[in-house]
């Protein structure tokens, strides 16, 4: 086979096209994720040097010490509350944007999701000004005579973290819900009305079921991202933040200097997240009336954040 025929071979062409995009992500993403797993099977010695010997000791310690499962549960609890609150806030706004707003619809939608992409830190920090002891909320409460003394518990508690995370991930939750609501044919709503269903019935039996894939996608993002968040908790959580699993990881990779144990905690977290994502994916497909995935329009996320979504 000569060179030019080789170049026309579809398999060779595919291989050539795949080389950079697949190769790069393999080296800088797949290998790092795998290395994390590998490192979780190593250990540190007394001098805090990483020893490359295979051991399950980290996992034994992780599941044997009440602290680690507790932090996981605590984080999951916070993430769950954030998810429910974000859903409660995002759904009405998404519904309003999808069905009620006529003028400036795109502008309003952009206005809702722009904060998603900018100034994560600013938004977390804004809450510090609002909730702090000399903050706006306390100032208002004292001025109005509702309380005599500024309330100290507003800031540096898990409630501050929950409020801030809810605020940060509400636009995230909104995106896929809005996408799902937008894709519902208007004729379905009209048909329901023509068949003498009231607005409540139409919502419960037509709109809500059809928006479930979007709700699921939004909730998954909110849960996963708020569970792994460590910035807002450190900024606003006070002592409660130390109880969050992501901060345990930060500390193990930092001051506590036990990377293998930190890697093991991360792997457990990663496993939970991936399980949740695939479960949500399955459910979404079941609920989806066209059998296709309803996803948020491209980023989000990112993850960042965005969510990661496309």
């Amino acid at each position: 086979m000569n060179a030019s025929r080789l170049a026309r071979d579809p398999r060779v062409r595919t291989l050539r096209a795949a080389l950079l995009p697949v190769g790069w992500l393999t080296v800088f993403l797949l290998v790092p994720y795998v290395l994390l797993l590998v490192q979780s099977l190593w250990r540190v010695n007394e001098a805090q040097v990483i020893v490359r010997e295979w051991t399950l000791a980290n996992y034994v310690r992780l599941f044997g010490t009440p602290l680690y499962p507790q932090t996981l549960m605590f984080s999951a609890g916070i993430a769950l509350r954030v998810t429910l609150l974000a859903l409660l806030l995002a759904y009405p706004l998404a519904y309003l944007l999808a069905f009620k707003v006529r003028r400036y619809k795109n502008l309003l939608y952009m206005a809702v999701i722009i904060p998603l992409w900018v100034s994560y830190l600013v938004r977390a920090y804004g809450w510090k000004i609002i909730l702090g002891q000399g903050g706006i909320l306390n100032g208002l409460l004292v001025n109005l005579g509702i309380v005599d003394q500024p309330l100290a518990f507003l800031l540096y508690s898990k409630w501050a973290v929950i409020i801030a995370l809810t605020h940060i991930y509400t636009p995230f939750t909104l995106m896929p819900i809005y996408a799902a609501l937008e894709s519902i044919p208007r004729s379905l709503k009209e048909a329901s009305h023509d068949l003498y269903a009231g607005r409540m019935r139409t919502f419960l039996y037509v709109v809500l079921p059809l928006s479930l894939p979007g709700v699921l996608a939004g909730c998954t993002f909110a849960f996963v991202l708020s569970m792994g968040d460590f910035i807002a908790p450190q900024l606003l959580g006070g002592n409660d933040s130390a109880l969050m699993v992501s901060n345990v990881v930060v500390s193990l990779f930092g001051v506590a200097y036990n990377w293998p144990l930190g890697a093991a905690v991360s792997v457990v977290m990663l496993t939970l997240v991936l399980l949740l994502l695939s479960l949500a994916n399955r459910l979404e497909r079941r609920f989806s009336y066209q059998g296709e995935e309803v996803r948020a329009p491209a980023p989000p996320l990112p993850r960042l954040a965005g969510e990661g979504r496309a």
Partner: protein
Amino acid sequence: MTARLRPDWLTGALWVAGGAVFLFIYLPLLVVVLYSVHDSHIIAWPLRLYTFDWYVVLFHDRGMIDAVVASAKLAVLAVVIALAVGVPGAFLLDRYDFPGKTLYRRFVLLPLILPGIITGVSLLTFFSFIGLSLSSGFPAVPGWPVVLGHGTALTSVVVTQVFARLQQMDRFQEEASMDLYANPWRTFWYVTLPNIRTALLGAGLLVFTLSLDEIAVTFFLIGRQNTVPLQIWGMLRRGITPEVNAISTLIFFASVIIIVIWARLMRDREEAKP
């Protein structure tokens, strides 16, 4: 029918709820912007307007200026890497079939879907394993690990944006070009590229903004030189200073401007469609 269009308490309640949520989303941002011109170094109620002293302090803060320069360099390099890897990735997904394609598509999205902390510690482990120092490349770049980390993690943004555009593209134009004896390079340059140009630009802008704001991955990979979010982070841990409000306000408006340009680029395309 007319009865249904008339404002009523249910729709009214919906508007009130939606407005409240909207307010909730913008409240902290508004507060930060207002307190950036607050005339006292104690950030407390009541608000005292106004002074631009905090902006003056900001422009004389050597550490912050270094951080701005580092962040800008980092974001530009992240855009370059993300485009260089992401565009071929989008073409691969659009035009080729291969075993593991679905897997690849899902894998690309992982850095966006996973909490940043997991990608952060994985990359930290990786760079430590291959022995690349977090400060390597400094002062030319803020550090190669953080550059590679941003570029790689944000590749997913480019892949999704460019892939979406390629899917809408009219492939007959390319075939016509090839029929007229243009070679693949000429076809790409004169036919394909003009079609996806705004998507490339838009994706680049989005990556730039996301890189400026990224903190979870940066936190683990940063070497000696802080980026702006980490510099702010450091200041916040030492105690609140109104200078933080000033820099936050500037970053917020800069990011919003970039995002608005991005949105326009996307919309122009929509309108150009037949």
